[in-house]
C-alpha cells in the first residue's frame, strides 16, 4: 500500500503509481509498475507498439481497471471506476473517433461535459486559434482538425495533471509546433503533463524527462539531460557486412568500450566515458582491422539511442 503522505497537499500535481499490474486473458500487459512523476514538467512516455503505454494511461484514469497496485493522481486515489481522478485530470485518448454528425462547437461541448462554462470558453478560444470551423460538422474535418479539437478539449480544463496519448499524431509541422509551445507554457505554469508519443523528435524537443517502456515494463526513466549524456557515450561505426566484427569488437573493448551491439554492418559501441578518441584511435590505427566506412558520434537520434540501448524498435 502507498504510505499516506503527512501533507495531503504534497501529492498535488503528482502521479504516483506503485505496483500497478494488468493482464488481458492471462497475458501480462503491465508488469508491476512503480512510477513517480511531478509536480510539474512534461514527461515523455516512449515505447514500441504493444509496450503498454496506452494501457498504462487508461489504467491511470480508470478506463481499464488494474489487477493490482495503487494509483494516486493529484492527491486522489484510483478507486472504483476512477471518477475522482477523471475529475482532477484531463485525458486525451490516442484513438481518434468522433461523432461526425455533430458540429465542432457541439462536439467540443460534449467533450467538455461535466466541466464548467469557463472551461468550454477556453476550449472554444483555443479551437478558434487553431482555425477550426466550429460551425461545421465533424465529418467535414480532416484527421488533423479532429486531433486539434481533441487538443483544445484536453487543454481547456484548469487541472494540475494532463494525460495525453499521441496528441500531435496527424498534425502538420506548424500546428505541431504550436501544440509544443502550448504544452511548454502549460508545464512552465506548473502543470504535470504525461505525454505518450511515437514521435521521438517531439519527445526530445518538449519533454523534461522520459520513461521508456517495453512489454509492460519500465526500462528506464531518465531526464532529457541524461539522455543527451547517454547519446554522447555512444559511438557508431559502419563497416562492410562481411568484415571481421569479432576482431573489431575485441580491440574496441580493450580500449574503453563497455558494450557493443551489431546490427547489419553497423557496430554501436557504448563507451566508458564521453570521449571517443581513444577507441577511435585503437580501431582505426590497427592495421589488421578493416577501415570504417562511416563514423557517427554525438549526433545519434533518440530513436537510435532507444534502439541501441534497449535493442527494441520504436515504430
Amino acid at each position, binding site marked *: 500500500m502507498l504510505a499516506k503522505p503527512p501533507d495531503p497537499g504534497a501529492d498535488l500535481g503528482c502521479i504516483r503509481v506503485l505496483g500497478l499490474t494488468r493482464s488481458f486473458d492471462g497475458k501480462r500487459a503491465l508488469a508491476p509498475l512503480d512510477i513517480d512523476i511531478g509536480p510539474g514538467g512534461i514527461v515523455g512516455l516512449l515505447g514500441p507498439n504493444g509496450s503498454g503505454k496506452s494501457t498504462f494511461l*487508461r489504467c491511470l*484514469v480508470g*478506463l*481499464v*481497471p488494474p489487477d493490482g497496485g495503487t494509483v494516486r493522481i493529484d492527491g486522489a486515489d484510483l478507486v*472504483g*471506476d476512477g*471518477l475522482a481522478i*477523471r*475529475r482532477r485530470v484531463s*485525458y486525451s*485518448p490516442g*484513438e481518434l*473517433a*468522433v*461523432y461526425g*454528425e*455533430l458540429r465542432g462547437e457541439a462536439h467540443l461541448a*460534449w*467533450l467538455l*461535459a*461535466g*466541466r464548467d462554462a469557463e472551461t468550454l470558453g477556453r476550449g472554444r478560444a483555443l479551437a478558434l486559434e487553431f482555425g477550426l470551423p466550429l460551425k461545421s460538422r465533424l465529418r467535414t474535418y480532416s484527421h488533423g482538425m479532429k486531433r486539434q479539437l481533441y487538443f483544445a478539449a484536453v487543454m481547456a480544463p484548469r487541472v494540475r495533471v494532463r494525460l495525453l496519448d499521441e496528441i500531435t499524431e496527424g498534425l502538420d509541422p506548424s500546428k505541431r509546433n504550436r501544440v509544443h509551445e502550448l504544452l511548454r507554457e502549460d508545464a512552465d505554469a506548473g502543470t504535470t503533463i504525461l505525454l505518450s508519443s511515437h514521435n521521438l523528435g517531439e519527445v526530445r524537443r518538449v519533454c523534461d524527462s522520459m520513461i521508456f517502456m517495453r512489454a509492460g515494463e519500465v526500462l528506464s526513466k531518465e531526464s532529457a539531460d541524461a539522455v543527451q549524456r547517454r547519446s554522447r557515450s555512444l559511438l557508431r561505426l559502419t563497416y562492410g557486412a562481411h568484415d571481421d566484427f569479432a576482431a573489431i569488437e575485441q580491440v574496441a573493448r580493450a580500449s574503453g568500450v563497455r558494450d557493443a551491439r551489431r546490427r547489419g554492418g553497423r557496430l554501436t559501441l557504448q563507451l566508458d566515458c564521453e570521449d571517443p578518441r581513444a577507441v577511435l584511435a585503437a580501431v582505426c590505427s590497427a592495421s589488421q582491422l578493416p577501415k570504417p566506412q562511416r563514423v557517427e558520434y554525438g549526433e545519434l537520434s533518440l530513436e537510435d539511442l532507444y534502439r541501441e540501448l534497449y535493442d527494441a524498435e520504436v515504430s
Partner: protein
Amino acid sequence: MDQRLRIYAVLGTAYFVLLELMLIPAILYWPDFEKNIGAIKALAPLDVLKDMVDTLAQGGIEAYVNGQHFFKGVNTLGTLAAALFACSAVAGEAHRGTLEIWLARPFSRRRLLLERYFAGALALVLPIFLTSATIPYLLSLVGESMDPWRLILCAVHAAAFLMVIYGLAFLLSCLRSNPLPIALLVLMLTVFEFALYLVKGITHYSIFRLVDFDDYGAIMAQGRLNLAVLGPMLVVIVALLGASLHAFARRLP
C-alpha cells in the same frame, strides 16, 4: 445534450408517428369491419387467425382496439423499436470507436449507462402511452368509447413486455461491440416467437401469449393489471438492468 439522447428523441418521435398512423385508419375502419366480420373470418388463412376474428366478434370494439393497437401495432413496431433503440446503446459506441472518449469524461459509468438506458426506455414506452391516450378521441369519431384508465393499464402491460425485449438487447449491447448482429438476433428471436404464436397447439409456448387479446381483454374487463404476468416481467426487467450495469462496469474501452 448527449448525441445518443438526441437520436432517441428523433427515433421516439418517428415511432410515435408510425404507431399513430397505424392506429388512425384501424379505428376509422371499425364500422366496416364490424359489418363484414363474417366475411373477414372466412378469409383468415390460419386457425389462430380465425380464433382472433372470433374473439373480436365477441369482444366488440374493446377487443378490436386491443388487437389493432396493443397486439398488432405495439407488439410488432414496438419490438422493432426495442431492438433498435437498445442494440447500439453501448455496442454502437464501441463500433464507431467513441466508447473510450465517452467513458473518459468526468462521469461515473453507472450514470452514463442509466442515463442512456432510461432515455431509450422513455423513447420506447412514451409513444405507447401517448398513442393510447388518443384512442378515446379517435373512437368518438366512429361513435364508440372506451375507458381511458383501462387503456392506460393496457399500455402499462404492453410497455413492460417491450421493456423485457429492450432490456435483453441492452444487455447484449453492453457485452458486444457490433450493434447489427444484436439487432438481428433479437429480431429473429421475436419473429420466431411470433411464428410459434401462430401455430395452434404450440401457441402457448410463445412469449406473445403474455401480450395477446386474452391478456388485454382481461385487463379491460377487470380494470386492473394482471400481476401474475406483470410481476415476473418487472423482475426480469430489473434483473436485465442489473446484469447490464454489472457488464458495463467491467467493459474495456
